[in-house]
Each structure stands twice: as C-alpha cells, then as structure tokens.
C-alpha cells in the first residue's frame, strides 16, 4: 500500500524540493514581513511580488487534531492523527503527528513539535511533525 503522493505545480515546486533535502521552506514578504503558506509568487497580505523563500525552523505546537479511525484506502489500517500545527513562524498547517501513540492522552494540545520528513516517493518527502526533544522546546521564535 502506498499513500497517494501530491502533485506539485511550478508555484509549489520549491516547497517540495526543500522537503526532499530535509528543509521546511516557507515564503516571507520582503515588503510587509508576512510569512505565509501555501506557497504563491506574491504576498497574500499586500500583493507584493517581492517574496523570498527561507528555511523555517521546523518548530511548531499542536493547535488541534482529530484521530481518524477510518483511514483512507491508500493508508495503513490504523487510526492516525490529522492535525493543525502552528509553526513558530506563524502560519498554521494541516499535518500528521508521528512518533507518538495516536491517542487523546498522548496528543496534548500545545505540545511542542519538530518537523520530520516521511518519504512518499523518490521525489516527495512529506513534512510531518514529531514531539520535540526537550532541548528545543524552550526558546522563542
């Protein structure tokens, strides 16, 4: 069984190129400073086209989640989380929480997380999040 990998477009290709080399890449507006996701070649806050890719810290917190007890046909047959994570840089993303039992007792709201990458195909490495090691949980963005 193989999870269906996503199909990048020219606007999103740098994001997936980053993931393939272990970087979570975001874009930031050079004019207003807004950091945003998903990728696009302009700033959604001010419409400046002067936007720059940068490597995000990969740090996040668990904003909210469900535990999906009826996984899709292309997924393993075990309950799995689908989460909203809040990145240290601001944007919130949908993701999975991995490396921890998939139960409400273990998945604690606001728990610190760190990005890791799950290989879906030779070209696609999916950013997902694991509990952060204690040493990276204390500082501010």
């Amino acid at each position: 069984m193989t999870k269906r990998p996503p199909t990048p477009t020219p606007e999103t290709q740098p994001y997936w190129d980053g993931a393939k080399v272990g970087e979570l890449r975001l874009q930031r507006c050079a004019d207003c400073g807004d950091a945003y996701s998903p990728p696009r070649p302009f700033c959604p806050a001010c419409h400046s086209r002067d936007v720059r890719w940068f490597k995000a810290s990969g740090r996040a917190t668990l904003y909210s989640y469900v535990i999906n007890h009826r996984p899709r046909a292309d997924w393993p047959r075990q309950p799995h989380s689908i989460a909203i994570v809040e990145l240290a840089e601001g944007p919130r993303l949908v993701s999975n929480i991995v490396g921890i039992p998939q139960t409400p007792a273990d998945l604690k709201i606001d728990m610190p997380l760190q990005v890791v990458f799950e290989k879906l195909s030779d070209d696609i490495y999916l950013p997902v999040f694991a509990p952060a090691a204690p040493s990276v949980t204390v500082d501010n963005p």
Partner: protein
Amino acid sequence: MKRASTAIVGAAETTDLGVIPHLSNLGLNADAALNALADAGLKPKDIDGLACGYLNPADVGEYLGIYPVWTDNTSVGGCSWMIMVRHAMAAIEAGLCKTVLITHGESGRSQIGGPHYDFALPGTLADQFEYVYGWSGAATMFTLPVARYLHEFGIGEDLLAYPAVVQRQWAARNPRAARKNPITVDDVLNSPMIAWPFRRLMCCLVSDGGGALVVTSAERAKDFPHNPVYILGAGEAYETSLSGVARVRDPLRPEFIRTSAELAFSTAGLACSDIDHLMVYDAFSHCPLYGLEGLGFCAYGEAGDFIREGNTAPGGRLPMNTNGGGLSYAHSGSYGIFLMQEAVRQLRGTAAAQVPDVKTSLCHGWGGFFSACATLILSNETP
C-alpha cells in the same frame, strides 16, 4: 423590521428522500424543480432566472425546458443554495429577472450521475497541503478545530452528543426523517468512533435527495397559491479555501460567521431576540454550537450548555433544526436547501413538528470546512 423586496413563493423537496436509486444528480434537480414549480402554480415558461450548483445552469435549463436570462452557479459548498437566494434577491431588485428557480439535487448516497465532487484533484493546493495528510472526507477536516475548542473552553466531549440527542427528539415527530428512534447521550458516546472526538451519531447522514425554491418580488408574491415567505435579510461571507480549515483566522470564534450574520440582521432590521425559529447547518454536531455562538445567540463556549439545557428542544425557547437536521432528517452532502425548506414549512404552518406562532426564522449554513457561510432571515410578515 424593514420591508422585504422579495419572497419565496414555491418550495418543495424531491418526491423521495434517503435512498433514490432511479435518479441521477440531474434527475434529482429536475424532480425538485417540478415539485417547487407545481407548489407555486408555475410552468417552465414562467421562469426567467435559474440557479443551481456544480451542474451547469445551461444544462439544467435545457433539461427543464427553461430559457433563463439570468443564471447563478455559485458552488462554494453546501450553503451555495442559500447564497443563491441572496443573489436572486439582488437580481430581482435590479430588474435583471422576475422569477427565479433555485434547484438542488444530489445522489449523495447512491452516487448516480455526476458530478460527485472531488475537491482535491492532483495538482490543487488541497491535494498538496491537506488531502496528502489522510483527509478521509469531511468528518476528518470540518472537525479539526474542535479538540482545541473543547480544550480552551473547558468543555467535555459529552457536549458534542447533545445536539444529536435533541435533534432526534424533533426527528421523532417527523415521518420523513431518516432516523426517528430516541437516543441518549450514552448512545452517542458509545457509537463507533469516526474521527476522535467525533462518533458516528455526531456525524450527518448520507442521503439522496434535494429541493427547490421559487423566488419573486414581494409585490407579486401575494398572487401565488401559498402565503409568501418574505426574505427579510441575507448575508454571505468567506473565510478560507474550501479545505483551508488550518487558515481560519480565529478557529474558535470565526469572523466570517459574525460578518454574514451582521449582513443579514442589518438588512432585516432585526436582532437575535426577534427570531422565533432557527435552522443551523449540522453536518457534524459542533456546527450548531459554532452557529449559535457566531450568530450571537450564545456567548462563545456556552452553546453546548444552551443545547444541553433544552433551549433548542421541543418546547424550548429557541426551537432549532426542527426537521431533525442533517444528523437525523437527511443530508445529501450539500444541506443548505433543506434548512430553507424546513424554515418555509414552519412559516407556512405546515411543518411535521410545527412550532406554534413562528413569524421569523433564521437559516445559517456552511460551505466547505469553515470556508464560506450564509445567513437568511425569513418571515411570513413584512411591514
């Protein structure tokens, strides 16, 4: 209360509801349309405006023998047909057309004909940033903020059970409802887990069916067979992309609900205290909570208790989802048309679970996963 410009003069659902193996999406649209036109005493030649969702209105027009000079094809999720009412109101006020048919039909259970919506086609942002994380239908996406809602407001999972229990009390009074047997909070909490914290009985039905409305000017509305249902106020607002639930600006107090409500209340010149009857789109049991709070009927974090205390139940002071709702009546995937059908029945005095003396009804619906919403205020009176 301000004077209404337009009214609903025809309203009907599909002949059957639930499992309809002999009709496609297009066929269900047509069945609903024929029933609504018959209800209004109209023929195809009387319709000059046509609104439908996802299907091409030119295709639906030709199938029905209707030659419109105005169409609307708003397709932003389940509340689209409510938004079409607002757009029809504007078109009639502007003189673009006189009599609008709004039609919906959806083979949600049997999946006959098309389109059957694939919202995450390869190459879309939804495919790359949401579907890829195991999105397994609305139950795993529309529900995403709820764990935090429970956490921040200090609410137990049992408060997600009460909407289902209370709406089943309404459904028990409605022969057309799909599920009528009484249920308890324990029944809901012990039903199979779908996507924690959501159990099966907290999730809507999956049905075949549809409905249609006929909208015209308030001036002409008195010449139809049924008493008019005036459209006093209407609002619509957008928050994020269809599956962009992670990007809702405030997922616990979403701004777009307040925006849509304010548009509807200000157009109507009414406030929450003027509303006799409420319909809130309940794809999942948290939806009525978000509706009650965002519309201003309850403070944030208090709607669960409001429902638990029986305020929205039969005999309560704010009857809500009196057909049984998407949880117990029917839900074809897009539920907006069904809210309005029940509001019209209540205002005509013909509902199965009729509430006494209903003069105003508010309908609030969603599109996508907190992507779009719409609010309508309807009445059987106008100044």
